[in-house]
């Protein structure tokens, strides 16, 4: 397949390098020097020119390209590239944006801007940070339905309160479905009388809050849960999303922002976060607010150097773990060497996401369990689906074994699926499907 990448910055070149061995890659960039670099360092065709111009796109051969990835540093350029491509070809378009408003527009209507898949740098970076912070007992956490549904995989330890307990006894959470038990490499669909054994892995699907609650039940010692103290330094977009996502998981983080207006703005948007208007390098303030007692500090200021400083300062006053946002890829290893526990590079995260997506192919939101033993899919139910307009109890009979309806969202509201729940067309359903029956099940949905 021919893949056209517009923008040969860090994200673009990283994707190009990843895809070059399988696909025919063409890179467009307006910087002639970068283009030359590309041509010499990777097995791709690099063209100098304006990616929003039809002539350049035609020169790159979008007519018979299978995919176009707009990955410049400018949101609007990326959007215009995708629109232009959609107007002149049938290629699948992927756009990278920083502004989450564009993402929201696109999520409302997937036809917006002519973009088939959109990745948001700030949101992805925040998500990967939160994944590091969140659910210590969880092996894997994936968001569905725009974050309203979460799939999580937990390992049950010997001393866990849920080991040697039946599913019926363990199921004390209203918005949680037990999707599967992974035992000795096999996937088992749990019934009420199934006993959870030590060393089982339990896959649950539910609201972020209920998953969090379950995490606390599975491993009360390991996961301090909401008691975990997180301090986010810097109210950048990433800092904001980290706090927001933590709120969704039931944390009550603290966020330090120096600019009064931005602080007020964030405080309005984040009801469960304590926003403090102060300089994070003010040691007197840090002491007074006992920031040193925090379990984790996320440095999300706009500058790499400041993030390093904040992380080192935090470690010095006793914070257990520090995570820093690092914009410059080369600094990541360096910062981790001098004392930052985890460095997160937003561009790297985005490049990974786009690469992962292009590899998987297809627009469904998918998570793989145990590398291919099972899949968790999110689908939008249409009238033709076997699920539409009937009770789950009834429709599940028509599907092979190994399928569990994990969660339903309707008009952005979470609905806990039970046997008598009627699925309507337009609902988003998150399903757990055993890998053995995936190909059989997918057409029915």
């Amino acid at each position, binding site marked *: 397949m021919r893949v056209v990448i517009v923008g040969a910055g860090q994200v673009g070149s990283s994707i190009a390098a990843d895809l070059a061995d399988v696909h025919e890659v063409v890179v467009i960039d307006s910087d002639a020097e970068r283009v030359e670099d590309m041509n010499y360092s990777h097995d791709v065709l690099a063209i100098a020119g304006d990616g929003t111009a039809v002539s350049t796109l035609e020169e790159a051969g979008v007519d018979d390209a299978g995919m176009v990835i707009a990955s410049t540093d400018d949101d609007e350029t990326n959007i215009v590239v995708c629109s232009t491509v959609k107007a002149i070809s049938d290629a699948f378009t992927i756009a990278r944006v920083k502004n989450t408003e564009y993402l929201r527009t696109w999520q409302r209507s997937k036809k917006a801007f002519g973009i088939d898949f959109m990745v948001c740098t700030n949101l992805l970076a925040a998500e990967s940070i939160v994944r590091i912070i969140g659910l210590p007992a969880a092996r894997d956490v994936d968001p569905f339905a725009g974050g309203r549904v979460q799939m999580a995989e937990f390992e049950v330890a010997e001393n866990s309160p849920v080991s040697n307990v039946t599913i019926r006894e363990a199921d004390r959470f209203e918005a949680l479905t037990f999707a599967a038990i992974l035992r000795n490499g096999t996937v088992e669909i749990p019934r009420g009388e199934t006993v959870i054994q030590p060393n089982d892995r339990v896959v649950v699907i539910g609201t972020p809050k209920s998953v969090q609650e379950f995490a606390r039940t599975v491993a009360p010692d390991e996961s301090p849960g909401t008691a975990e103290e997180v301090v986010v330094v810097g109210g950048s977009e990433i800092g904001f999303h980290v706090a927001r996502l933590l709120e969704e998981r039931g944390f009550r983080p603290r966020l330090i*922002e120096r600019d009064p207006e931005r602080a007020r703005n964030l405080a*309005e948007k984040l009801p469960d976060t304590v926003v403090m208007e102060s300089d994070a390098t003010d040691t007197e303030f840090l002491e007074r*607010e006992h920031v040193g007692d925090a379990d984790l500090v996320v440095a999300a200021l706009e500058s790499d150097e400041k993030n390093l400083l904040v992380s080192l300062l935090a470690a010095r006053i006793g914070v257990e773990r520090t995570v820093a946002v690092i914009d410059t890829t080369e600094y990541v290893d360096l910062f981790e060497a001098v004392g930052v526990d985890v460095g997160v590079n937003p561009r790297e995260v985005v490049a990974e996401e786009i690469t992962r997506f292009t590899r998987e192919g297809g627009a469904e939101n998918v998570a793989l369990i145990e590398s291919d033993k099972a899949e968790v899919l999110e689908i939008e139910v249409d009238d033709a689906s076997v699920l539409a307009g009937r009770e789950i109890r009834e429709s599940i009979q028509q599907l092979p074994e190994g399928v569990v309806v994990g969660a339903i969202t309707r008009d952005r509201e979470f609905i806990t699926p039970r046997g008598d729940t009627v699925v309507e067309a337009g609902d988003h359903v998150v399903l757990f499907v055993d890998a053995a029956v995936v190909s059989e099940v997918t057409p029915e949905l």
Partner: protein
Amino acid sequence: MKLRVDYRASLSLVGSILKYLAVPLCFPLLVALYYGETVVPFAVTIPLTVVLGAGLERLDPDPDIRAREGFLMVGLTWLSVAVVGAVPYLIEAHGIPPAVAPVRPASTLGNPANALFESMSGFTTTGATVLGEISFDAHTRGIMMWRQLTQWLGGMGIVVLAVAILPELSVGGAQLMDAEAPGPGIEKLTPRIAETARALWGAYIGFTVLEAALLYGLFLLGIDPNLTLYNAVAHALTTMPTGGFSPEARSIEALSAAAQWIIIPFMVAAGVNFALFWHALTGDPRHVFEDTEFRSYVGVMAALTALLSVLLFTGAGFTASAPADGTFDAAYLGEVSGIIVGQVEPTLRHAAFQVVAIVTTTGYASIDFNAWSTPAKYVLLFAMFIGGSAGSTGGSVKVVRWYVIVKSVRRELYTTAHPEAVRPVRLAGRALDERAIRGIYAFTLLYLVIFFVATGLLFLDGVRHGQTLTLLETMAAAASTLGNVGPGFGVAGPMGSYLGFSNAAKLFMVALMWIGRLEILPVLVLLTPEYWRR
């Protein structure tokens, strides 16, 4: 000095509204015709208001309303409507030749101060009365219907009604409604303000018709022989505006228990933000129950009802014996308390009815709460300061303001411990602008200051006038008129009247009702030199 306010434009619009006051005046005229009574009070007032209105209207053929003119217009509208509304009372009390109407006992409304008090009390939905005798022997059915109708007109707001029907008010209508509407700010339901005003009045009319039908249904079913069509309509006309006038001398006590149970939910509905009904009809009804103000409103009424029920059930809510000054009948006290102490249904009914009636500022009475003990009365005095929801027909401070004050005080306590914390005050998840919070503080403080000053002045006037008023009674009279509640305690109790106050005190209370209905600031701003200066 040249004035910056275009008072001609304001007066002209006041004229337009006055002119249209002739339309509702036709209703009691028809009632009078139906019962074969004198139509003179209305036959005189109708042309009078049309001429006066048209005259004022000519002051400015093309009135241009801006914020300043809006305040003046709204303030003057309520004042002039009350003045015109008093005319039928005066005419009825004076000079109707015996040939036209049978001789009746002298009406207390012959005193212009009394007539104005009654009219202002009606339009502001206060429900405080100075009628010496509430009966059809003393007053015609037409006049009594006019009294009910003034409350109904004032409830949802005369200016809102004007915005709904007068095209020239569509520009600037939002400002006008803001100056009149209860609660901080107005909520536009539709892009066009006239449509919003119509939607609000539509819901209001709908509820009124429904209540009248249900009450009349009780009559048709033979459950309550007292609820004739006249009475059913009259009570619906004064429940929905949270008014509280009743053509019955004993207020709602004259009606059956079933009627009282029917009236309770209608009073509750009248105190709800009418925008919520609109949302319930056009959107998701569940959201109504998620509304913060609605929940606090229902919660506070439930809590007070529970408290009062306990007091009444155990008998602690009643004075052990009649007071020495004989302000009420000892035999009656025994009769009332004997009926409800230890009885579940009547206790609950009277507690709920009285709490709802006071919180929503309707001011109906299902029982003479004058006979209650001081603690029970204090519960009601406290309730007088709560008020209905913003955008309802209820008066007083409003639940939403108290809610915001409680939340911001909690914020204050938090930021004392954590000076760097930035904590917006949230209302239903939405952060409130700090200016709005300041406005709420200013309003509430001003409300309480006016209440205390008014209490003092009324007390002094009582002494001057030779009236023996207790402090509780004075406080209740001030809170009741300022909050547009209606009845107080003692002489001004639910079965009594404000007749005993001096003319000066009555006129002062007319002003209290006026500024209370318009929520203080729109009226007070008219008194500042900055408002008038260029």
